[in-house]
């Protein structure tokens, strides 16, 4: 900077304090702005790893269940994972309700796992809660296991018709995804 004219030279001695405080304020303001800017830039750099729009668009799946007769089940897909949609027969419903809930590893009744008025529709993820294999039993001819539901061949977990873990290493019942019937024939999953 050019030499200080005489009138302002006093700024450096008796008012030196005020000058230094003003200087500090500028530095603090600049560094705060820089910090705020750095955070504002980092947010999109981290957010880009979140699911992209095309992945989120597949977040709901519509399935037409009108062709599934009682006692039958189908395998569908939601979020790139298998979903089991099963139409329980009245006998299967009765058997499931007869099991004392406290005897279950993951205690849940049928009403907690189905929507009211549609308790014959058993919709669960087709992913074993042990280590993630796809259990057998949804397609016709597959081994339903000792409890008439699903059977996981990887380590022997056995589920009942309501997808509840009855035997084997799996800790929890098959997960029930969020779903809603938009009509008697169509269910929207997710």
């Amino acid at each position, binding site marked *: *900077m050019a030499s200080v004219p005489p009138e302002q030279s006093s700024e450096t001695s008796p008012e030196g304090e005020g000058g230094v405080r003003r*200087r500090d304020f*500028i*530095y603090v303001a600049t560094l705060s*702005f*820089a910090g705020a*800017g750095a955070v504002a830039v980092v947010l999109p750099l981290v957010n880009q790893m979140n699911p992209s729009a095309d992945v989120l*668009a*597949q977040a709901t799946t519509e399935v037409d269940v009108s062709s599934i007769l009682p006692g039958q089940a189908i395998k569908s897909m939601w979020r790139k994972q298998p979903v089991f949609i099963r139409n329980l027969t009245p006998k299967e419903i009765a058997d499931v309700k007869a099991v004392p809930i406290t005897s279950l590893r993951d205690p849940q009744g049928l009403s907690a796992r189905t929507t009211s008025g549609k308790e014959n529709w058993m919709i669960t993820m087709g992913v074993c809660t042990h280590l993630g294999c796809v259990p057998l039993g949804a397609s016709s001819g597959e081994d339903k296991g000792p409890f008439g539901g699903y059977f996981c061949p990887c380590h022997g977990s056995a589920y009942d018709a309501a997808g509840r873990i009855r035997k084997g290493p799996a800790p929890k019942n098959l997960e029930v995804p969020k779903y809603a019937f938009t009509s008697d024939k169509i269910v929207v999953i997710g």
Partner: protein
Amino acid sequence: MRILAPLAPFAVGGAFIFALLWAILASAFTPGGMSMPEQTAVRMFHEEPKALSLASDGPFGKYDQQQLQRGFQVYKEVCSACHSLRLVSFADLEGIGYDKAQIKVIAKTWPVQQPTISPKGDAVVRPNIASDKFPSPFANEAAARAANNNALPPDFSLITKAREGGAPYVYSLVTGYRDVPTEQLKKFPDSTVPKNLYYNPYFTNLNIAMPPPLRLDGQVSYAPGNPPATKEQMAKDVAAFLTWTAEPKLEARHSAGLATMIFLLIFSVLCYLSYKSVWADKEH
């Protein structure tokens, strides 16, 4: 060696200079080697795009959703018969103001259906759902060419960014069909329009394979509350829609830009003051 090595760059460079002089002399002594490129019909009669101002122009531009919807209607009723939009999904139409229910209907009723595999393993089609991309009107390039005199109608998703002149070019092209000027035929008697092509001075080589897409005012019926569907208006609207398909994130970009510029201008001032303060007592 010690004497030769420092001379190497001079020798090599000298060789290049010699080669350049040789090249200049060679073209000077070749008939026509130095002459300017010939005037061709394209050079003389090709026209630059007409001006077009859109709501999305400029640093503060925003899309006019009503215009984008009209443009989409023009695309649907006029262009989609031949031109695909393969990078856009039906769900993306939320960006031009449709809600999920409307999009579901648009997708389901879209004339071209989505290729899929039947449970028996045959290649079939099914109605579109929101997450599908717009299906191409032709199964593949060969089918597209067969239906269009061996010309391939380009995909429209990026057309305003893929052509010099952008949206103004699209607008000018679509409204630019006319007869060959007599002046051109006088100067270049060979430049008559070849079979199956159409004269359009805005197109790079003056003759385009696409027949005029907008023939009549009112070709598309706009809903009440919109300007009349003249050819001009339809062309502007579809150009606006195609600007959106190429840059759906334009509004987000402009608003993030405004916040960033304001922040950076303040930050630059603060940095300047800090710099001045640090150097206050040092001449430099």
